[in-house]
């Protein structure tokens, strides 16, 4: 038989919490002062992905082909394979003179080679504001729904603990996106929502065990119960994280450029979510003085 885990997690809670608080604060500062690199979904603007087969075309040629058209802030980068470029510019609304058709024609003329326009996206100012708002509403609603579900299934201390853990995960993930200036678009909202679900999932498994053990060892302290519970579920926590990361890693490496940001956000979120269910969600129960008595009292009230 394989060994049972028996680490002393509770001893490390204080240190871990200080680190967590530090990272959350740094993330908040970054998000507020450095801000996020919003993609055209949320900022409005135009994105063009194109492929040129000719070897003579360099990134500077692409850039100059798009300049002098009064398209606003212009960003050109190589995208995946050689000859593939992603061009983003500020221009949100077109008219009869300057429009996607005229831009395409002008670029083909200036480059003088065949250009394959693989993807064109344009988001107007009104739509981008709406998309950003509905993204934020979705994330808030998801958090609210989680809070509500856990509140029904567990006691309020658990509800608060799991929500703080989720905030921790989401804030740090977004903080990492801010410091690395990674693009935040619609798929990142999807990733954040999935992180919320995953982190919750991970926390619930440990909480379930803590509650079970609280009634089983009614005389033990919450410290001991948390420690036992975390150790008992540790094997599962690690295995599930590993299989999820294997799947996500496969998307990140092989799934193509479009899914890169999405899978990266998920990978970061899963790692932090796994950490937080052990080192954030569990200590909060201790700080809230959860004990066998407190959960029995709650049960009686209901």
């Amino acid at each position, binding site marked *: *038989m394989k060994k049972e885990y028996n680490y002393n997690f509770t001893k490390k809670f204080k240190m871990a919490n200080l680190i967590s608080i530090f990272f959350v604060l740094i993330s908040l500062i970054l998000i507020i002062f450095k801000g996020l690199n919003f993609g055209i979904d949320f900022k409005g603007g135009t994105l063009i*992905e194109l492929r040129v087969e000719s070897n003579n075309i360099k990134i500077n040629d692409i850039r100059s082909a798009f300049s002098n058209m009064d398209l606003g802030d212009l960003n050109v980068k190589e995208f995946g394979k050689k000859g593939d470029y992603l061009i983003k510019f500020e221009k949100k609304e*077109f008219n009869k003179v300057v429009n*996607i*058709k005229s831009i395409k024609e002008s670029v083909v003329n200036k480059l003088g080679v065949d250009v*394959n*326009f*693989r*993807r*064109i*996206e*344009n988001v*107007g100012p*009104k*739509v981008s504001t709406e*998309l950003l708002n*509905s993204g934020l*509403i*979705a994330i808030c*609603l*998801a958090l609210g*729904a*989680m809070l509500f*579900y856990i509140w029904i299934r567990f006691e309020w201390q658990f509800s608060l603990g799991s929500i703080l853990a989720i905030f921790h995960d989401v804030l740090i993930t977004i903080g990492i996106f801010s410091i690395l200036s990674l693009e935040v678009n*619609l*798929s990142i*909202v*999807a990733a954040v*929502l*999935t992180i*919320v*679900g995953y982190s*919750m*999932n*991970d926390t*619930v*498994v440990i909480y*379930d065990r803590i509650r*079970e053990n609280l009634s089983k060892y009614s005389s033990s302290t919450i410290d001991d119960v948390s420690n036992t519970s975390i150790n*008992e*579920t540790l*094997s*599962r926590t690690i*295995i*599930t994280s*590993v*299989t*999820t990361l*294997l*799947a*996500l*890693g*496969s*998307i990140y490496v*092989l*799934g*193509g450029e*479009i*899914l890169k940001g*999405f899978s990266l956000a998920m990978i970061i979120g899963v790692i932090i979510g796994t950490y937080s269910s052990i080192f954030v969600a569990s200590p909060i129960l201790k700080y809230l003085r959860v004990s066998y008595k407190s959960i029995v009292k709650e049960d009686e009230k209901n």
Partner: protein
Amino acid sequence: MLNFSKIKIVLIYLSFLVVSFFCFSNISDSNNFFLKKKINLGLDLQGGSYLLLEVDSTPLQKRQIQSKVIPLKKKLIEKNINYKNFKIKENTILFEINENDKEKFEKFFKDKNNDINIYLNQYRSFELDYVFEKNLVKIFLSKNGIIKLNTSAVDQSIEIVRKRIDETGTKEPSIIKRGSNRILVELPGIKDPERIKELLGKTAQLSFRMVTDDKTEFGNETFILKDTQEKISVSKRIILTGDNLIDANPKYDNINQEPIVAFTLNRLGSQRFGQATSKNIGKRLAIILDNEAISAPVIRDAITGGQGTISGNFTFQSATDLSLLLRSGALPAPLSVVEERTVGPDLGQDSIDAGVFSLIIGFFLVIIFMIIKYRLFGLIANISLISNLLMLIGFLTLLEATLTLPGIAGIILTVGMAVDANVLIFERIKEELRKNISNNIQAFDLGFKRSVVTILDANITTLIASIILFIFGSGPVKGFAVTLSIGLITTLFSAYFISRHLTSIIVLRNREKKFLI
């Protein structure tokens, strides 16, 4: 938990077989009712264009306010209300009345049966709102009045948009209403939406009016002729509009071989056109399209047959487009593209290839990991994982869901997270075995029972998140929510029934063996 009745076993595997059977209908060409179902590929995978159009109702609002002017003046006189300085400014009617007439005004204006400020039953509010500023009355469209105007404009526009797109021969377009003032157009397989965008960007409001010599502003408008740049004065009185047209086709003029548009009028149109042309022989008739004078030919004969032509420096392409627009009717208000996403077919194929490749690799990584970690029970987890995947694809086919690139990511993620349920069960059984080494059956029984609650809790939370994403997500992201949600449900089924049954077979055969997991 280890005992399954025969009926239960049959039901479990039957439902598994039925659902996963639909995977195959994706690769069959049969037209059979059951095999016809297929997973739809999203625009990001098959290539195509997504256009979100917004109706700009400002001109409609202006027209609506203008239409109120004459009846309102009449009503004020009828009710003995003295008004002065009556004018229209930025979609607002302004006039002054005496202090003691205000009550009279409010009485008729807020009467639910008045025919000027119409009461909108479905919104429980009036079409117009008003405010008093001292003696000044300001009348403007209410919030719901604008919504109603937008809604009816969108409803009318959808039909015309559909006609125009159908005329271009685009296959399987999807055209739906979004909110009160938007239309979502999805054009699968289209490479270049520019022509369609151009066609949808024109309202195509056509009118025939007489050119006059009268240069005064009143009742006349000045236009610059498109073909000759000549400045002409045109009467505001409309003889005919595009509504009177029943057909229009591009043709070459018999005389100078120039492309022209030949049109046919309906009966009412023919009569009016006949009268106007017979009375005005020798005068010029202006053809106005979207506030632009495209030509102003001289009337040589009375046109009574209801057939005529429009010339105006057309190319054959522009004559074809104009005919198409005239055939499909005028849009009530201009449409503008507020969001556009176009994916070329080769990028779509690349995305499918990359998505499927990463799915296969991710799947094998997880399978190998589980075998290494759990050996025989890893095999069970893997069988349950494969059946999970088959059922997931089966369900997507059954629902004819739309698969997008993030949707494929959702399937891969499901693969990664699906083993969680099995892991929870196996780990729990291991624990029970440690405590109660002698009795495999009891340990398995307890292990399953205790882990079920946790599995449910854990999956429901993820399900909540993905349902919210489904409601709020747009486009491809919605596809992710679909696969993730269905994946969670198939995961629960395969863990709770299939792995449990397979585990029970092994446990019952090895009652005495120690350290089974």
